[in-house]
């Protein structure tokens, strides 16, 4: 168990709902769910989730902390926004799902092999380095996500696409050595640092 996770368990001992309200983006809305089930029924990925959103909300209220945070359900969200459009009470369900996923990842409880999580982290790390996505490195990182031989196979299968992207100047071999970025990457890092501080301060301020 990570230190942060341990600290959170201590802090919110009996109320996972309060923990979600304080730490999860839009988590304050969870208490508004009236368990009608429209989100679950409207979700195009619904049949593939272990726990549909409506059930996740109930589990949060029932204090099923481990089960929720280690679940891969919220990682299944594709941001189609069907649930938000249909929710009779206006819960920003998509955002809550992403908020939960993000929080679970921060605590180190998210399922390690969940592909959406892996991709999201690779994308984020790649992007935040220089403020621009390095397509070449991101692409290769994804190809080799599941091991070296698998990577070679995927790379060969996508050879033509890669060459075409090079030809169309959508990707450059030079990206391998540094790559392009925003003008002021130190400034970008300062912004991200500040954003993280604000996020943490918000959680500290929360008083159930």
């Amino acid at each position, binding site marked *: 168990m990570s230190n942060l996770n341990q600290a959170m368990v201590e802090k919110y001992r009996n109320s996972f709902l309060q923990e979600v309200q304080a730490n999860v983006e839009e988590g304050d809305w969870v208490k508004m769910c*009236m*368990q*009608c*089930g*429209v989100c*679950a*029924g*409207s979700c195009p990925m*619904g*049949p593939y989730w272990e*726990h*549909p959103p*409506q*059930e996740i909300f109930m589990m949060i209220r029932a204090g099923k902390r481990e089960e929720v945070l280690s679940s891969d359900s919220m990682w299944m969200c594709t941001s189609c926004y069907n649930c938000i*459009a*249909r929710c*009779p*009470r*206006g819960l920003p369900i998509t955002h809550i799902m992403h908020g939960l996923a993000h929080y679970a990842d921060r605590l180190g409880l998210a399922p390690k092999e969940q592909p959406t999580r892996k991709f999201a982290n690779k994308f984020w790390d790649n992007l935040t380095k220089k403020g621009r996505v390095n397509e070449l490195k991101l692409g290769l990182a994804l190809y080799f996500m599941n091991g070296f031989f698998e990577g070679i196979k995927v790379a060969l299968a996508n050879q033509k696409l890669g060459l075409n992207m090079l030809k169309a100047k959508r990707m450059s071999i030079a990206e391998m050595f540094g790559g392009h970025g925003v003008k002021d990457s130190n400034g970008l890092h300062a912004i991200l640092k500040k954003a993280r501080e604000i996020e943490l301060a918000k959680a500290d301020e929360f008083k159930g």
Partner: protein
Amino acid sequence: MADIIATNETILVVGGGISGMTAALEAAEYGKQIILVEKNPSVGGRVSQLYKYFPKLCHPTCGQEINQRRIKANPNIRMMTMTEVTSVSGEEGNYSVTLTSQPRYVNENCTACGDCGDVVEAEFDDDYNYGLGKRKGVYLPHKMAYPQRYVLDPQIVGTPDATKAAEACKYGAIDLDMQEETNTITVGAIIWATGWKPYDANKIQPYGYDRIQNVITSVEFERLSDPHGPTGGKILRPSDGKEAKDIAFIQCAGSRDQNYLKHCSRICCMASLKQTTYVRERYGDEGKASIYYIDIRAIDRIDDFYQKVQADENVHFIKSKVANIVEDKASGNPVLRGVDTEGYNRYENPHELVVLAVGMEPSVPAGDFPVTVKVNEHGFIEQDESNGAIFAAGCSADALDVNRAVQSATASALRAIQVVNRVAGTEG
């Protein structure tokens, strides 16, 4: 109608449904002068379109008849049908109101014999049956219509049908020269009882009311179940005219949903519970009813009724707001899709007919009143001092069942009586 006598001790009641009739009768039987205006050709409103009332399951025709007899017996009530209020000015104790009456083209000589209707060929959608059937161009709105007098549809005026109808009448009751009339009257207080309308089910897109034939509304289901309705009481589904025996009811269709109506319409749970008894009455053990609900709101004493329906093993309760409905093309069956809250099971249930328990919204939209009144965020009239002596009764005030609408109407009658008593006192 130049013979309307009204003073600032008169109470105007706008709307002749159950609330308006009640308010008018209560005040008239107390001794006040009443003008009761109704937009439609007959009074009775939405209650007259019900097959049965809950929770006693008696027929509205009975209560309606009592009210009609009370009106007939009471010289204090002046009833004006096909009339709308077009403007209101003035203040508490002294309002000037303009009433606009549409021509009925049939005068008091009418005996409701029906000879005119027999000869007329033109047919129109029957509003009384929510368009499920047709009526003639000259018609009696429905069997219990009061006044019992035919109406000639303005759409046939100037056609050979109108002449035929006039010729067929033995009593000289058809008068094609009638014109729209406008009257301005003075009244002391106004009771606003324009009631409700069913929420437009077409707006609830995931339920496909506009594209799936066998998805109907609760008000339409009332007409289908009524022996005096367009199908003679047979529950025939629209796609193929077959009797539907496996019927699903969807609660909160348009209510408790910020995309549609935010408020709880209060009546729909009881209405659907009641309608499951129609299914049992019609088919006995062969009928099957399924209620899809978020939570059943059968309040106080009518919880008994809920328990009785729950005890019926042919009625199934599924705790889930249906996410969407698709049509099975081969059978015409609507297929309900969603996830239930008792176990989070994903379902895909076909039914022969689906009834949407549509919500109640005020029949006059906020902003369309001929006078400024304070309404709440749902469009219902508030009890507010700034409204002067304009008092809402029944479903103009809130989403109410018949029982509560009548209570509300009695309360508004008392408020209006106090105003005109004050006027009488100062003029003493």
